[in-house]
């Protein structure tokens, strides 16, 4: 495991929407086997950063994205996923009128070499995943059911399970535990530990420092589009971190 080359590296990435500059000159790298926590107030630009990494947003002129040491020019979501980046988006990214199995394999459908979809396999895989990875308490989890009829937490379950299925090099979780019950939250946090154990990387976004701190190796704090701090866990205690988060919120600066 060569931890010298980052799995993903952003150089000077900015992103502007109209008059709003959501990211400004962000430099970030994630190394193999590393779990990085991303913290920041509402509107700090965390989700924008995630979507830029995924190629959903194109960075402004001058920003560069490097994957495993290679500069990538035509970056898009399909390519990112193919290279092994999976994301659980904050907005879940589900197609709610579609059955669970279609959502599970959205964008990466199983097909045979002639391009014919293997619907049967997708359904059975979906059933397996849903019952193995997420234990549902309601009756609405047959793979043919539309996502529409599921509860908020169940939907989140689909989005999480989907990201697990494809053994990704880098998993990005944008507030994944939102709306999950205690036991499901625990499962998700366990899952993050498994990523690390298997030598893969993750970016973990959450508002709950109690969730983030125990799970990660390193924390990056975003404030109004800028990287305001970057701590190894060994360098900062949870209390110091909370203290410094409040400070950022108050003064906009990490330093006293």
């Amino acid at each position, binding site marked *: 495991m060569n931890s010298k080359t980052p799995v993903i590296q952003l150089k000077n990435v900015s992103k502007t929407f109209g008059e709003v500059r959501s990211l400004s000159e962000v430099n970030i790298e994630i190394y193999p086997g590393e779990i990085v926590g991303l913290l920041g107030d509402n509107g700090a630009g965390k989700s924008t950063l995630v979507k830029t990494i995924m190629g959903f947003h194109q960075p402004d002129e001058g920003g560069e994205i490097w994957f495993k040491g290679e500069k990538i020019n035509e970056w898009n979501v399909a390519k990112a996923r193919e290279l092994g980046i999976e994301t659980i988006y904050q907005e879940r*990214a589900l197609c709610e009128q579609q059955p669970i199995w279609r959502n599970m394999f*959205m964008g990466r459908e199983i097909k045979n070499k002639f391009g014919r979809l293997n619907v049967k396999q997708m359904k059975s895989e979906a059933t397996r995943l849903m*019952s193995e990875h997420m234990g*549902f308490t309601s009756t609405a989890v047959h793979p043919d059911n539309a996502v529409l009829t599921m509860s908020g937490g169940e939907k989140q379950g689909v989005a999480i399970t989907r990201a697990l299925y494809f053994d990704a090099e880098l998993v990005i979780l944008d507030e994944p535990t939102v709306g999950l019950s205690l036991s499901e939250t625990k499962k998700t946090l366990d899952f993050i530990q498994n990523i690390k154990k298997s030598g893969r990387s993750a970016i973990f976004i959450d508002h709950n420092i109690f969730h983030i701190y125990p799970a990660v190796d390193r924390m990056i704090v975003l404030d109004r589009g800028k990287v305001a701090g970057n701590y190894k866990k060994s360098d900062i205690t949870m209390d110091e971190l909370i203290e410094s988060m409040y400070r950022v919120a108050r003064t906009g600066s990490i330093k006293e």
Partner: protein
Amino acid sequence: MSENKDSKVKNNAARPPSFWRRFGMQFGIWSVGIFMWLIFVFTASEAFTSKDIYLAFASSTPLFALMAIPLTLIVITGEIDLSFPAVMALATATFAKIYSGTGNIWVGFIAALIVGTLCGYFNGWLVTWFGIPSLVITIGTSFLFRGIELAWMNGSGVGLTDDKLLGVANLLVGRSFFGIANQFWWTILATLILWFILNRTQFGAHVFLTGDNKTSAQLMGVNVSRVKRRSFAIMGFFAAFAGLVASFEVSYFWPTLGEGLLMNSIASVFLGGTSVFGGIGTVTGTFVGSFIIGAINAGIVASGINAFFTQVFFGLVIILSVIMQAVISKRIKR
């Protein structure tokens, strides 16, 4: 704890949606179709108990069913196409011009299909490149394509009775088994092909995702623009084919070809249970919807309702069919 989870799954989670819930949509349209057929069998029994009227439907309904079926794909992606009647005409004009210029039937035939596909692709390109709703832009391209065709033909039609054309005419619109018109078989074939494309290819899966939630689909790496462009291209291809079928059926190419078919095609798609909001639809539903639409007019006239009341009844039948279809689907879903 895990054995508990499993048992829970067994108790609560493995129940599939009921039969009604899964096939509700198809069931709705089929029952509307059968119900209407029964009514006509009683009110217009002379016509509807002889096979002639069914042969007539088999030859006339495909003229718009062949376009309603691919239109289903476009509607599922959340778009619409109002320009396909003009594409029909422009593609057939291409055939007529190339055939009369070169005398080569197959070159003309292929060229017509290519022109149709390109017109469709052009629509799709406008829609996706500029992000303009298709309902708006295809009103514009409809005038454009029709205008080009009329200017090219100088407004005149062309007869298609040349002996050399007999072969292709027979292929497209000849009569086979029991006198059923070939265009009926073509429509069946189109339904099967598009069913496969929609339900058994990645492109088809993406058609559903695109129409359901564009942003979600994009976030998961679906190239929604490409999906839309291709759906429009498929529409164009079939419009061209339908143009040739319709012209050979009457052995004449009228420059106004297709004008009366717009509403019929659109109504068939929606009657067939495809959602105007995208994300939901079936080609088989559209197939049945086409034949319902095709039968209404003939059925009403044959029932002996006269003259101006036919429109009243046509309207009522459409309204009632759509209501029935909506009520049945809703009932089934809950």
